């Protein structure tokens, strides 16, 4: 088993209204920030995951996104998997 670090970015599907992003964008000029456009607010979910290899980790996280982490009716997601042990000095037993 290896420990992977999973990062999932969940955002509203394009075409779905994003009232939060719009409201922030409309408020910015009054706060003194100009030249800002296309504000989108999404979620970033990070966690550690045990899996035998990267392929398994990836398919596991993909399934978790479909079933729990994203609401695929209105949201889409991207995910990335990093082998934590490779980031560090050596590989764990």
């Amino acid at each position, binding site marked *: 088993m290896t420990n992977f670090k999973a990062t999932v970015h969940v955002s509203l599907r394009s075409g779905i209204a994003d*009232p*939060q992003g719009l*409201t*922030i964008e409309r*408020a910015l000029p*009054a*706060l003194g920030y100009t030249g800002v456009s296309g504000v989108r*607010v999404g979620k970033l979910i990070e966690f550690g995951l045990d899996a035998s290899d990267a392929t398994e980790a990836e398919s596991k996280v993909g399934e978790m996104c479909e079933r729990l982490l994203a609401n695929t009716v209105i949201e889409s997601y991207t995910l990335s998997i990093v082998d934590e042990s490779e980031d560090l000095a050596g590989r764990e037993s």
Partner: protein
Amino acid sequence: MTARVGIVVFPGSNCELDCERSFERLGASTEFVWHDDNTLPDVDIVVLPGGFAHGDYLRTGALARFSPIMHSVAEHAAAGKLLIGICNGFQVLCEAGLLPGALRKNEGLKFLCKWTELRVEVPGTPFTARAERGQLLRIPINHFEGNWYADPDTVARMRANHQIVLRYVKNPNGSLDGVAGISNERGNVLGLMPHPERACESLLGSEDGAVIIGSMLDHVMHMQPSPAGV
């Protein structure tokens, strides 16, 4: 002679009518102040009411604290006059740095509208003069983000300085130390999550909110050079 109260209305505020009604019921005169104005009218007390200013988008209070009126609100507080932020108003005050700490999502991740019991930890403030130490007040909460937090140093300083004014008897939301309401160092700014304006009439379940609102009005009346016979 009545206390003059300015109730700031942000786009998305929704408790301004209730504040108007309850403050007036207790003898104040009130007026609404639009967030986009630059200066406050001549008032003794400023209220930041509950609601969802700017939809609470991004973070509760995050956008509201930049409203033009907030300059003037900060000056009002700096002059030692009374400022109270209720629920969303409390969140705005924390975001604006007029009160310490921040409000996080309730521990149970649910919006909660319910009656709570508060203990008055610091009597004798302009907001609690009508109460005794340890007095219990029945006042409802109504929020998703009422879970107050500040770092340990700040909390220690606030305790020493008697800024933790109101605590929940039974913590509903995970708030640090059971904090329901806090004041600034000088003691003239109060932020609290419970809604005293909802508890000023026995028909609606409690009159304990009048302890807080009434204390503020008393304070203003005492500060004023009172004409004889009033």
